[in-house]
């Protein structure tokens, strides 16, 4: 419930304010979104398994976003930013799917 309200407020704020992202930050935005999604799915899975902990959630969220952005930044400096962002997206994608599958099993027992 809290999460749904939070998501709603965030999306509405983003669509209303439409903040302009500075050019140097633009390549990291999609990566940050994927990393944040991963943390949220992790939290959801913990919730469904009854082991959710808000502190772990906050820490994993912030750490995910920052580390993913940093890895891609490092890749940019080394000239392999595109490949590294692909790698980050692949890894997070697999994690998101694995967690989503676990959540699905918990909810539907299937």
């Amino acid at each position: 419930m809290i999460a749904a309200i939070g998501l709603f407020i965030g999306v509405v704020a983003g669509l209303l304010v439409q903040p302009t992202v500075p050019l140097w930050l633009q390549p990291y935005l999609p990566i940050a979104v994927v990393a944040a999604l991963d943390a949220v799915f992790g939290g959801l899975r913990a919730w469904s398994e009854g082991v959710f902990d808000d502190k772990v959630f906050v820490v994993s969220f912030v750490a995910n976003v920052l580390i993913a952005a940093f890895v891609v930044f490092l890749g940019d400096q080394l000239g392999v930013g595109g490949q590294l962002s692909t790698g980050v997206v692949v890894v997070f994608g697999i994690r998101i799917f694995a967690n989503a599958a676990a959540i699905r099993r918990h909810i539907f027992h299937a």
Partner: protein
Amino acid sequence: MLPARDAVTLLESISADAFDPAYTEAAGHRSAGPPPRRPTALRTAEIMIPIMVLGLLLATALAQTRRSVPDLAKERRALALRIEERTARTDALLKEVELLRSQVAAAQTSGLSISDAGREKARELSRLELAAGAVPVTGPGLRVVVDDGTTSAGDQAQDGSERVLDTDLQRLVNGLWAAGAEAVSINGLRVIGTTAIRSAGLAITVGFRPVGRPYAVEAVGDPDEIEAKFVDGPGGRWFRTLQDNYGIVFRVSGERSLRIPAAGGLDVRYARVEGPR
């Protein structure tokens, strides 16, 4: 051998470790000791704020992507518009050049017609102008239409061999000169000795102005012999080969009356008139 297995285990471990072990650990701590007393407001904020940030990021990334798409299209349109604008401007300037040149010619004739020597000079001048391509001309001659071939062999890959190239047009024009053409134009652009026929990307430019297919090459010359001379000459032979082998369109027709415009840039850049001796 091993690398493939390693890759599989890597992917497996990613999905196996997808669940953050920190959650289980925290749950273990909780069950071990008494639950830590923390205010509910803080716990709510700890869930709400990250989710809000996610929503914000999502919306921003979405808006960013949607905004940049029309930007790109707009840029492209603006560039195309600029090209059209400049081409139209060049066309207008060329027309102006032709008009001014005819005015100069009229003034010259009226000035030179005062004396016998002047009239003699005027006749020489008009002969030279005709030869140099400085004036539009009319006369009988030949129209040669060439165009890219359609790949006749069904789904044969379009490898570009069925296209008319700049060198083909060069050979065509040279063949027309060899057949006795006195004035030549491609798609209404006068071709003289210094006109460059080149390719720019996939397009062909004549005197640095782009021409589109089909290419209509017109030549004024002796109506009794230009056609036979051209068709049997090197230019005609080259295009018959292209027609047979690559399906390139090649049509020759004799014309009673052709109008060929004056050439654009007639500047002589390096040569100077020899001083009076």
